[in-house]
């Protein structure tokens, strides 16, 4: 399930929803938070492309489900103005086994970072895309046969 929203989220609630009693052996979660960029006034502004952003997250979720044996997955991306330390994004994955849950969770955030239409602004400056993010995404696209 995917959500794009202004409001905050609760890791505890999302974790509870990811569990399927008796079937889930591993739950991996990732949360991204706003670090302190106080030289630009602090915090972030997050813009997205409504419609296309939802489709992009859904497509990434579908790809993860196709590539690994997952039970449930959750993606939440916040938009709008976010202060230092606020939660930005959550990816949660439940599986019978940990290797699948780790791989899918990292895959989702790596692909999201390079393919989903969101843009961050710190103070007056729109962030530039990072080469390290492209490389992280390329790594997954290169090892298409790398199911563990």
């Amino acid at each position, binding site marked *: 399930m995917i959500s794009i929203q202004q409001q905050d989220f609760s890791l505890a609630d999302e974790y509870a929803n990811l569990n399927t009693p008796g079937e889930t052996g591993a739950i991996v979660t990732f949360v*991204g938070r706003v670090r302190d960029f106080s030289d630009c006034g602090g915090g972030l502004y*997050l*813009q*997205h*492309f409504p*419609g*296309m952003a939802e*489709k992009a997250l859904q497509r990434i979720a579908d790809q993860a489900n196709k590539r690994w044996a997952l039970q449930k997955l959750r993606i939440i*991306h916040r938009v709008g103005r976010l202060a230092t330390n606020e939660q*930005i*994004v959550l990816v949660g994955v439940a599986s019978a086994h940990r290797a699948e849950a780790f791989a899918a969770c990292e895959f989702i*955030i790596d692909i*999201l*970072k*390079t*393919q*989903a*239409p*969101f*843009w*961050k*602004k710190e103070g007056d400056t*729109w*962030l*530039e*895309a*990072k080469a390290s*993010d492209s490389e992280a995404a390329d790594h997954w696209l290169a090892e298409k046969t790398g199911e563990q």
Partner: protein
Amino acid sequence: MARIKILYFASIAEAVGSASELLNIPDHIATVKSLKSHLASRGSPWASCFSESSTKCAVNQVLATPDSSIKDGDEVAFFPPVTGG
């Protein structure tokens, strides 16, 4: 003559001072590449945004290539490389 909707995001919206516009384009503008040239021909700040090869384009919310076709009623979006997550 095709009528399209153009959306601008992030640094591009800010540079051109607009988030969207409705545009009538002549028939010879039928690809993303030719639309970018058309917009770049408006002069500064359009010239620098739309001659940038890093500027991405989506047609009807699907990522497009320079050769993707544009037709009447399309929604065409321009944006810089994404930085979410």
